């Protein structure tokens, strides 16, 4: 029994190591292949700065938009009982499992020039496809569910009895929100924002389908990486390292916030 237990343990450890390797090898390869000396020049010449700025702006806007609608939605899903709640919950999560390209086509069908809402929007002078706003919309569409999912779990875990206690002490609804609910959902909020942001930052399929890849206008960093790969693989590596650095900074930054003791 002991020998068999040991071999099972070894097998598991081996598989786990394989998993770690699968995660790390591409990253190591990326860093190893990076032309460090030529990097600044490559970043400059490939228009990476513009793409990076666009990526940061659109993904941040996408997170803001996701928060604006996702926070109330998560609250409703967690706190309000109504018929069809579980159906709505599944619907909200749909973009997570939808192939991004399908999401892009769906957005075109809705907001494209001849789309369901595109015509009326165009009539009031709003056109989303092939604009930075369209990129943001596409990113928010695929990334918001991550935020909603995390926040809903956060809201559901808030101790309602503490809210009641706060009320008996004279706390208004807003004070209860600020002093009881928000501190309790803070970890979930940060985790949701991190996931949402990472997803928006890395989005490719939905943005390219809906907003295209116009250099300087809708070409985000992932799109720039793909374009560069076709003309100059070493430039693609340079841009990839840039994107990797930004993602890493994001995770580290949010982990540091997450690690703050909530007392």
């Amino acid at each position, binding site marked *: 029994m002991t020998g068999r237990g040991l071999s099972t343990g070894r097998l598991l450890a081996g598989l786990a190591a394989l998993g770690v390797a699968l995660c790390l090898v591409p990253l190591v390869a990326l860093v190893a292949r990076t032309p460090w000396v030529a990097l600044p020049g490559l970043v400059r010449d490939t228009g990476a700065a513009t793409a990076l700025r666009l990526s940061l702006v659109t993904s941040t806007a996408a997170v803001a938009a996701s928060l604006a609608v996702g926070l109330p939605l998560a609250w409703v899903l967690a706190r309000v009982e109504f018929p069809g709640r579980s159906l709505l919950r599944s619907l909200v999560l749909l973009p997570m499992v939808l192939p991004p390209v399908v999401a892009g086509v769906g957005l075109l069908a809705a907001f494209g020039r001849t789309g369901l809402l595109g015509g009326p929007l165009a009539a009031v002078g709003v056109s989303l496809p092939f604009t930075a706003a369209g990129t943001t919309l596409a990113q928010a569409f695929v990334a918001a569910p991550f935020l909603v999912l995390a926040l809903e779990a956060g809201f559901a875990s808030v101790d309602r009895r503490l809210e009641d206690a*706060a009320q008996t002490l*004279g706390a208004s609804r807003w*004070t209860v929100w600020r002093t009881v609910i928000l501190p309790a959902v803070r970890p979930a909020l940060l985790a949701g924002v991190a996931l949402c942001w990472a997803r928006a930052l890395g989005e490719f399929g939905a943005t390219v389908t809906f907003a295209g890849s116009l250099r300087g206008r809708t070409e985000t960093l992932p799109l720039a990486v793909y374009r560069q790969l076709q003309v100059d693989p070493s430039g693609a590596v340079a841009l990839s390292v840039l994107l990797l650095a930004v993602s890493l900074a994001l995770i580290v930054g949010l982990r540091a916030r997450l690690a703050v003791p909530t007392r």
Partner: protein
Amino acid sequence: MSGAGLHAEARAHAGDFELDAALAAAAGRTVALLGPNGAGKSTLLGAVCGLLALDGGRVVLDGEVLEDPAAGVRVPVARRGIGVVFQNLRLFPALDVAGNVAYGLRARGVPRREARGRAAAALEALGVRDLLDRRVGALSGGEAQRVALARALAPRPRLLLLDEPLSALDVASRGEIRGLLRRVLPTFPGPRVIVTHEPVEALALADAMVVVEDGRVVQTGAPDEIRRAPRSPFIAALVGVNVLRGRLRLAAGRAVVSGAEGELEVLAGDLAHGTAVLVTYPPSAVTLHLATPAGSARNVLPATVVDVELHGERARVRLAGRPDLVAEITAASAAALRLAPGERVWAGVKATELRVEPLS
């Protein structure tokens, strides 16, 4: 339904549970809300402080109508000025002790420094000013209870509700907090309502008692009155305990509690000589005899039968003696003893059956 104090008639429901109970408490008085688990005691508190909406009836505090569904009145919980000590305390884990106690003051717009000062004073009054900067999670049961009490008292509420304040405590801190409540409650000027399912607590702390069963009030009155004359076998089982208040005297290896109503030999445990105590024992612990029973490792008291009540196979025998007591014996033994009012008997109570609780 006007004037100082609390006057509540609460008709409400929580799920399938129906509450229909009246509760009145005068300013400066402590009312014990007594009943078995699930009787609706906490539900009634919730209806008074507004966490549970009324279906009918009304809640009036110091002449102000807080809730009256028929008139469309419902003052929000936050504006009722009712301090609540919850059963599981519900301290805010994200705040330290100072933050918890100052919470009600901050919520009412008291500046931070002043709120902290008043929180410190509230803790001081309960003898735990040193807890000010402690984390809530690091408090002992008794400390947390004091902090919860300080938090409820700090904003100077008009009414104080305590939901089973001793139930979560171990035996040692229970006596300590009961003593604290006996000192602190009288200093609170408004009405106090304390929920408990322990008759001993009600007897030790309250001026009046309201017995609740299945969402309804089944008896109200002074604690001793209800204890002596419970209106139903249920209430008798719940609160119909025998009581002796007195001081503990330790002499010649014996521990005796003597009070104005008589004396009993007890097991003192680690209580000190001179301690004020409350001795309680169930009527079922009392045996009755026509002659002095042999082997006296027990209290044997001469007593006179006042009356005998039959409840099915049980008989409740009220006895006058020093102290007065109630015995519950089988109807068969009552018949065999031919108990009748005026009959002189011997009542036996084992010292091991006596529960001795310090009163301070």
